[in-house]
């Protein structure tokens, strides 16, 4: 089967050449046989989309190993560590605490709260055993610093 015929067959099967507004449109089987890029482009687009999604998923997991929790608005007096970054416009507050009773690992966890000068406040809970030193996120770095604080 020639590529021209194959393209036409595929296009007809998908109903691509039947709809209104397609009269002057370039039909897929008009594409010169030697270019033959229709499926390749689709594939490359799909794969690039998948790649970007994959990367995005990876980025998200790299950013947060903790889980988002409701904000408790703990005062500085109850924090184990406070990091003020005026030039970046945020404050990090962290407190180390015992993990809940339902927690199988029964270890320690770190509650980290971040407020910025746009008025957003977020809070994450990091489990002690999952905190990475090289976590890509300042909240996780804070959690790591609190977990490894001297005298604790």
């Amino acid at each position, binding site marked *: 089967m020639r590529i021209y015929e194959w393209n036409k067959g595929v296009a007809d099967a998908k109903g691509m050449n039947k709809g209104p507004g397609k009269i002057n449109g370039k039909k897929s089987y008009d594409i010169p046989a030697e270019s033959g890029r229709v499926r390749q482009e689709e594939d490359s687009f799909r794969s690039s989309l998948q790649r970007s999604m994959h990367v995005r998923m990876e980025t998200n997991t790299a950013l947060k190993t903790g889980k988002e929790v409701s904000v408790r608005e703990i005062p500085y007096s109850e924090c184990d560590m406070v990091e*003020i970054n005026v030039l970046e416009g945020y404050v990090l507050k962290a407190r180390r605490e015992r993990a809940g009773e339902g927690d199988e690992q029964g270890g320690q966890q770190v509650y980290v709260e971040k407020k910025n000068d746009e008025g957003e406040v977020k809070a994450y809970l990091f489990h002690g055993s999952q905190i990475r030193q090289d976590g890509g996120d300042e909240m996780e770095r804070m959690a790591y610093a609190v977990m490894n604080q001297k005298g604790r």
Partner: protein
Amino acid sequence: MLRGKEKEAEAPFAKYKDILYRVAFSNMKSKADAEDVVQEAFCRYLKAKPSFDSENHEKAWFIRVVINICYDIQKSAWFSRTVAFDEVPECEMKHFHLPFVEEDETLWHVMELPAAYRNPLYLFYYEDYSIKEISQVMDLGEGAVKTRLRRGRELMKERILYGTERKGMGLTERALKEGGKDADL
């Protein structure tokens, strides 16, 4: 009679003296002046005998009075004739301590900002106030507080990176105007 008045001020004095001193110091940059401001704030409290809806309301009232007294002093002819410091003198730095946060270089930079930016930044970062609370203390909209936080931060960056703000930024002029509005509170 005086004894009774002293008793009245005892409870709020014990509760707020530290934070009021810190707010006053961040504006006046001197221990003696900050203590005078706090004393004046409590005198005004005894004179006005205001009633409050809540503890937060009371605290906000005191902070606002302290900020206003600082503005009044800084606007006075005496203050403008004497040497006023933009920077916190090194000999005064030892008189300022934050209870839960380590003092760093950034804190002194915040204190050097024009009043319109200094107070929101100081309260937000070093006293852990929320934007809503700052808007109540300073009688500003929340949007205005956010704008001042952002502009103050930009101004600080300019000063740290270039030693001074770049020409054409006009942030200081804008701050002085906004500071003027605050002073009329």
